[in-house]
């Protein structure tokens, strides 16, 4: 079954796409200084995962809907995470008047 993968071209494309997306997200998460941006980049990474999941489902386990279900879960959870994240960002903006991550280094060493 796994060998059948290598025949199909599609999966590779999907994987490359997802990996690129993941890389972009990762870069953003490391490089961006704005908390919101970082949050969004993390979302990108999660979406990369989703692409993976759906693609694998299509090519690896076409009969069971494991991937799709999983993807839905991921989306839901991500939503929750973002919700919490934004709330926190607001809270910290209230009390530091900044969302620049570099300002948040009271906790160190």
């Amino acid at each position, binding site marked *: 079954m796994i060998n059948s*993968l290598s025949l199909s071209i599609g999966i590779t494309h999907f994987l490359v796409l997802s990996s690129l997306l993941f890389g972009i997200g990762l870069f953003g998460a490391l490089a961006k200084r704005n908390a919101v941006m970082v949050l969004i980049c993390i979302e990108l990474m999660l979406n990369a995962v989703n692409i993976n999941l759906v693609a694998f489902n299509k090519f690896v386990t076409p009969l069971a809907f494991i991937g799709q279900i999983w993807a839905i879960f991921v989306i839901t959870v991500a939503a929750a995470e973002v919700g919490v994240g934004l709330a926190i960002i607001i809270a910290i903006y209230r009390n530091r008047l900044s969302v620049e991550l570099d300002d948040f280094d009271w906790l160190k060493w």
Partner: protein
Amino acid sequence: MVEFSMTHAWLVPLLPFLAFAVIVFLTRPWKMLSALVSVGAMAAGFVISAYAAYGVFTSHSLIEKSLEYSVRWFSMPGLNIDVGVKLDPTSAMMLFMVTLVASLIQIYSIGYMRGEKGFSTFFAYMSLFGASMLLLVISSNLLEMFVAWEGVGLCSYLLIGFYNHKISAREAAKKAFVTCRIADFGLLLGMLALQIIFGTLNITELGEKIANFELYTNAATLTLVAVLVFLGPIGKSGQFPLHVWLPDAMEGPTPVSALIHAATMVVAGVYLVGRMLFMFLEVPEAQQLVAVTGAFTALFAASIALTQREIKRILAYSTISQLGYMMLALGVGSLTASMFHLWTHAFFKALMFLAAGSVLTALHHKADIWEMGGLIKKMPVTGATFAVGGLAIAGIPPFAGFWSKDEILSLTLSGGHPVLFFMAALTAFLTAFYMWRLIFLAFFGKEKPENHPQESPPVMTVPLLILAFLSLVGGLVGTPWFPFWGEWIRFGEFHHAAPDYTVMILSVILGVIGIGLAYKMYVKDVSAEQRLAERFRPVYTLLYNKYYIDEIYMWFNHTLVDGAAKAMYLFDIYVVDGIFINGIGAITRDTGSALRVFQTGRLQNYALVFFLGVLAVAVILAITGPAPAGLVWGGVR
């Protein structure tokens, strides 16, 4: 009673020991009571040992085969130590002599120590001292003997340091103990070797086994062992070069000096060598060493005594020199002679010390003989008895010293040691000279006005008289015509040597000349010594400063020993501790602080580290993990 005393000889050391305990724990507050307890115990011991001695000296069987009985002290596979009693003429004689002299000295001390602080304590120590010595005398086992040996050392430490508020006394005590300790190191090694080679430390068994030692070891080893054992006596009996502690032992109260020098401590060494004589006779080199050491010490000490000024110091050196005689006798293989001299010496030396003591009390502890003079008039008994002692040590017949010294001399000559004989003879001359120098300066000549001497009370003079009597007749038990002594106290066959008149006359002449010379120099014209001293200044100073041996030791001790100590200590602080321990600790702590810096508090640095971590893990897995080849072919199949 005789039977009882012989089978209960262990009571003799036990009684004084009990006296010690009683005084320390019960009667310390009541001075006289303590003194009585102490004297009583010693006297009782004397009675018992007298009976025992009687018993021994009437049963010939004991000469060859001593009476022994013992109990287990401790034991384990391969090591059995029994403590017990070994009763033969030698030990019986020692018991008798020690208890006798010790009792007399203790009686004397009642007078001498009157009003001293720590009167009771003094008697407690004296009892312990006596106990240890007596145990040493009767012990049947080397380890037992060693215990007593160290016990004697301890008591000497305590008694020499009796006036320990004086720096000098304190140092003297320390010196005595440490010096003996150095010697005991050798003795200990010797004992270890004996135990390991022969599997026993029982003297009798050792005697049998060493008689044919080839079964166990070779001669060289045995010689080494013998030398090691001999180290002990060198220290205890103040032989050269470990004699240094003995003169300083003067710091103790005079009765202590008497006890140490006459009856107990210093003769322990001689006695030990006598006990182990069978070993020394097996290995001639060792025996030679004993003889030479003895002779040299005798001469050496006598030469120092010539120039000393303190009365007790002179006596001390004379003791060393006399001990040299005894060692010499053993060295030439005669137990008889050495024990004989030990016996006579005990009396006249105790006598002289006690007399000196009474002089010192009379002069309020002014010790310089040049500041005395004419004491005989005010202190007839003391003076007279001292003179008796002087005659005895000078070897004037019929005083005790003559017979024993003469026997040693003749034996040395007949034993074929002309050099040693010469040294011994010379010593005899010197002895007579310096001893009478002392007597003339102290008791004759003109009185010094600043002195107000008075004769001591009977409690002190009576012992003097008794001892004087003994020093007069004590030698008669062993005259060439009546060799009672040699018949009983001997090692090996008894052979009655015909009296050697040449030696006899020679020694008498030497003695007389010595006395005469002393008379000429110190009574006729008193300035003679100064003139001689002027002429031979270097020699005089050398002698006066005891050949600077103390200084050499001091230097050694302070430079080398303390230096090494300091070095080790610094090494410990700065290397073992400083570099290793604290170093490691510091490294740990600093690493912690260094790593801490990575925790910048910047969220994204954390994220970065996180991903570096992912890479690291990947790499580790690629190295250690499954199918590295997989990486080469890469990609998804």
